[in-house]
């Protein structure tokens, strides 16, 4: 695998995760539990879309086949998408949405905090810009995890259920393959083994405050590094891509 090929795949991993998580959060727009939270979630979705946009645009340049960010977003199938499985999980109730966001925010925070040191200037610049937004996202989601875990009996049990559904998708975020080893050698990518303990500490700290426990079953699902997804992604993409695919000659 050449550096260029590895970088392209690495960028898809990052861009697709932001893209799909943004798409999921956007489903809440107009349907949030109250107006202020509706706006907050939409804001997060917008930030993630902005990140996806820059990363996929750069991915297109790196690939060098003239594909734009829209070509990459709207004209790839689910077997060519590399987003983390957790991002595509259904919104469920607000507890599940918030917990999904918290796991992703905590990952992104420590991940992009490291990636600002990347030898790839573009990647470093994108990370520097993203980290400002992610800092706010993490503050938002962790405060809500604490609130819902500690709120009422109902909110606590909803959080426990969300934990049970989502925990199994957190392990693969730290998985590394040839893409990583090629890029780590060049100082472009970062070692996810170094991100992991930071993520675990943060999660432990917030869950403790929220009086929530990690589920007994700690088996981890995997697959996104090989573009093998849960059944959700196909539906997300068919909805998202329907218009550009039905009128392939059209410009929007």
């Amino acid at each position, binding site marked *: 695998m050449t550096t260029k090929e590895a970088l392209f795949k690495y960028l898809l991993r990052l861009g697709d995760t932001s893209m799909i998580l943004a798409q999921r959060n956007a489903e809440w727009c107009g349907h949030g539990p*109250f107006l202020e939270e509706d706006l907050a979630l939409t804001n997060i979705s917008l930030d993630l879309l902005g990140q996806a946009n820059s990363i996929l645009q750069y991915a297109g340049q790196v690939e060098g086949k003239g594909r734009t960010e829209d070509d990459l977003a709207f004209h790839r199938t689910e077997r060519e998408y590399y987003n983390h499985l957790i991002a595509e999980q259904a919104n469920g109730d607000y507890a599940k949405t918030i917990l999904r966001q918290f796991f992703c925010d905590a990952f992104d925070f420590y991940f992009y905090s490291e990636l600002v040191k990347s030898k790839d200037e573009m990647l470093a610049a994108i990370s520097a810009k993203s980290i400002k937004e992610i800092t706010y996202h993490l503050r938002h989601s962790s405060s809500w995890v604490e609130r819902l875990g500690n709120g009422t009996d109902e909110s606590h049990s909803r959080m426990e259920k969300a934990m049970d559904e989502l925990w199994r998708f957190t392990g693969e975020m730290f998985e590394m393959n040839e893409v990583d080893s090629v890029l780590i050698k060049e100082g472009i990518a970062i070692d996810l083994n170094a991100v992991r303990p930071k993520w675990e500490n943060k999660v432990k700290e917030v869950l403790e405050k929220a009086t929530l426990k990690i589920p007994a079953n700690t088996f981890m699902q995997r697959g996104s590094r090989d573009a093998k997804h849960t059944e959700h992604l196909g539906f997300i993409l068919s909805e998202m891509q329907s218009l550009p695919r039905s*009128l392939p000659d059209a410009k*929007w």
Partner: protein
Amino acid sequence: MDIKQLETNFDAKLSKNENIEPKDWMPDNYRKHLIRQISQHAHSEIVGMLPEGNWITRAPSLRAKMILLAKVQDEGGHGLYLYTASESLNISRDDLLEQLHTGKAKYSSIFNYPTLTWADIGAIGWLVDGAAIMNQVMLQRTSYGPYARAMVRICKEESFHQRQGYEIMCKLSVGTKEQKEMAQDALNRFWWPTLMMFGPPDAESSNSENAIKWKIKRESNDQLRQRFVNQTVPQAELIGLTIPDKNLKWNEAKNGYDFGEPDWTEFNNVIHGNGPCNKERLGARIKAHEQGRWVREAAMAFAEKKKERVAA
């Protein structure tokens, strides 16, 4: 001060075009009228998020998705300012939402029409936000201070929305055959409901008279409608779209267009709950509110616990 004196002071303020502020004395009917109008306006912003929200997950490019998402978010922000302005008249947001959910309060009937194609997103920005601006520019000079100030902020964003909507229509109208048809079809479906947004003809408008006397409204429904038509027809022509009105004709003498009469029977049907999406729109709002109840309760319970902990 006796009531006569208070009324005289109030009228004097109005005639000097001074704003009425929350702490000022105001006639009961003025307050009621304002609560009705501002909350209806707030509800329209919130319900208005739904038809456009319907296309967020299907917007055809990343840029289009970001613009639409930001637009719908702006509308939510407008709802927030307006609920705050209503609250300054001593009514809580909970009470206002209750009125919306029980059907006691209305919202703009335009949002009871479905968004069937992507071009509808263009048409709504261009026409619906365009019509809203006519109304809102006037309301920047409305007599109630908090309402007038909310409008100043809102108007800036609305003109942005209108430009973005028109841009979608421009792109479609120079696009493929399917895109052009989509644009014309959206205009055909949204033209008349947009004209209805200004309300019934002046001769039949029950609330207009007081609103004008109190300087809440400064122009009549028909005046605003005429101004909207005059502004919009050339915009349609510029991008090769046809206004679906056989009676549309330039009238040199009045320096404006003559145009046909909207179908007021349809308008009344929609107002009375029988538009294509009334049930869906209200249903979606009620569902969001009910499914959000446990979240709001949890947030309150948590805040209480925190307070206790600080006190302990």
